[in-house]
């Protein structure tokens, strides 16, 4: 589904990713781990299309299409969705407005009709309940004045409504207490199915107790230095990133 090949990315002239390759198939959950500054967030930002990242070499394809040639919104419409580490406040734009606009943009891009209001309402209500969110969230401007935990729940709510093919979740566990983390993890687990892939970007193993990945990759200094199954994350927890860096060197 997602093929990243020999990706080199520079930011302000500094090379952050130095030949990263990654292959994610439908139905899989991958965890990308690594120390601070390894380039974890850079990968998801490049795939989402954020400005300021220059790809100097390599390729990213999604279902055979060249992602790097697509507009930001086309990537989302194609089913690539990024959950932000720091969700952005969108002043004055109500949550419900963004959700409906986003869902319909996606449906129209796929050649489907727009969702009728009652159906949309039913859908939203279901997901809100699941994420233990109050309906008043919908009337508030997106992320404006939300607590850290509320923002993260809101990211997952968007995922549940938009049902991406590939969900990339950047440090979705940061700033969450244990109860909030369980709710967020339940949300992510509910997204798991045979057609969908999930890429978790995380610094800590903690999240992976709740969302057990199929594959774990360790990113150090812009390259994946080791890949394995869920056991690898536990090794990291025990030995830290230094042990991996040494064994890789």
């Amino acid at each position, binding site marked *: 589904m997602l093929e990243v090949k020999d990706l080199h990315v520079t930011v302000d002239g500094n090379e952050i990713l130095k030949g990263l390759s990654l292959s994610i198939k439908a139905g899989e959950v991958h965890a990308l781990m690594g120390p601070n500054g390894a380039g974890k967030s850079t990968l998801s930002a490049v795939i*989402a*299309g*954020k*400005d300021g990242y220059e790809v100097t070499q390599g390729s990213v394809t999604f279902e055979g299409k060249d992602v790097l040639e697509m*507009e*930001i*919104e086309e*990537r*989302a*419409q194609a089913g690539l*969705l*990024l959950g*932000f580490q720091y*969700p*952005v*406040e*969108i*002043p*004055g*734009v109500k949550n*419900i*407005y*963004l959700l*409906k*606009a*986003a869902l*319909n*943009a*996606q449906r*129209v*891009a796929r050649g489907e009709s*727009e969702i009728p*209001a*009652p159906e*949309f*309402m039913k859908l*939203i*209500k279901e997901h*809100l309940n699941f994420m233990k969110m109050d*309906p*008043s969230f*919908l*009337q508030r*401007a*997106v992320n404006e004045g939300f607590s850290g935990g509320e923002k993260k729940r809101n990211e997952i709510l*968007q995922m549940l409504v*938009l049902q991406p093919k590939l969900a990339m979740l950047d440090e979705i566990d940061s700033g969450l207490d244990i109860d909030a983390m369980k709710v967020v993890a339940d949300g992510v687990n509910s997204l798991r199915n045979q057609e969908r892939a999930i890429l978790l970007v995380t610094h800590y193993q903690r999240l992976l107790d709740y969302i057990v990945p199929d594959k774990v990759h360790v990113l150090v200094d812009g390259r994946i230095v080791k890949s394995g199954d869920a056991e690898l994350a536990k090794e990291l927890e025990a030995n830290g990133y230094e042990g991996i860096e040494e064994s890789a060197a």
Partner: protein
Amino acid sequence: MSEVLTFLETLEARSQQRAEEPTWIAARRQAGAARFEAMGFPTRRDEEWKYTDVRAISQTNFALAENAEFSQAGAAALTLPIDAYRLTLVDGVFSAALSDLDSLPQGVQILPLSQALSENHEAVGGPLGRLTGVEFSPFAALNTAFMEEGAVVRLAPGTVVEKPIVLQFLSRANTKPTMCHPRVLVEAAGRSEATLIEHYTGEADAQNFTNVVGEYMLDRGAILNHYKLQEAPLGDYHVASMHVEQSRDSRYSSYNLNLGGALVRNDLISDLNGKGAEANFLGLFFGQGRQHVDNHTKVNHNAPLTFSNENYKGILGDRAHGVFNGKVFVKRDSQKIEGFQSNQNLLLSDRAHIDAKPELEIYADDVKCSHGTTTGRLDEEAVYAMRTRGVDEATARALLTLAFAGEVLEAVTLDAISERVELAVAGKLPERFNLTGLVETASALNE
């Protein structure tokens, strides 16, 4: 000076044609002309006109309209789709054909100034010019020298007018640039209540000058919701001097919505003269191309226990230039007053420009006042965040721009007006972004 002479010659020529009129009008006309001749057009050396250059007006030789001809179809396309009482002026000339003043409810008078004068000129002579005298500005003096037509609205005590009153000012694409100097005179007696809409619009190719003077008198407990929807053609010049007088417990709400015009200047002043009087000034100005939009507002807290709340939003793109100058004045010993003022501006391009100046002048010690102004740009992070959810860039920008206008737009309860503003500010949004349905969705969810 030759510029002033050109206008005075036009005035003289008009006077030759005019039938004899009551002496008080002739006297005021003369006073207006004299004052205008003495002052000349304002220049940027005048503090009140520091940011607005009126040479585009002063250097044009404007004619005066001779008739009110306008095609029914053309007018219908411009008219607000609102069930309302309607009085229409075409380039300042009253059009009975485009007005709907039949079956006015009891206690309501809406009539062209010319008719009000011929019915009882003394009843007009008292209030007319009482709030906006020839001293106010060269444009007020010029208006007084030329005044012929306009609208007189009178509400009897306790009259609540259910339908809005629309004063429609149409500007034609004439062969020669044309000017008009209409008067609006509103007398709202005690506990009366009405919604007044002044709508300035016209043919796209028009290049006219509208110089309106409005006087709004609210007696004890009167409520006036005053919309000004200025959608003048982009070649038009528009100067409006609006003066409000508020007695005890009256409530005046202004919705000053400016979308059109090449050069626009609004002066809006309210005198809060009795305890409990409240003035709400909401404003939105949107400029594009090389439009110049200048809003000067002033609230005079002349009595204790008076309240004012002002919120002006400016959105400027291309090379548009905006001016906001808001004054809150608290007279000596006007205690327990509240005066709030906010001005926020959004610049959509590097070459758009705003000059914003909020001012407080307070001569009492027990008051709550605040003011502030900010100028910013669209949040690119927010644009990006919306795009990552599949919303295309143009729509994301339009939605964020609309959101910026939010507080002012939400206060506009007349859909026909808010739709015009949304269309101008955000362009035509794809159907899927229509809010209809979402509101119901949201309220159903809360059940």
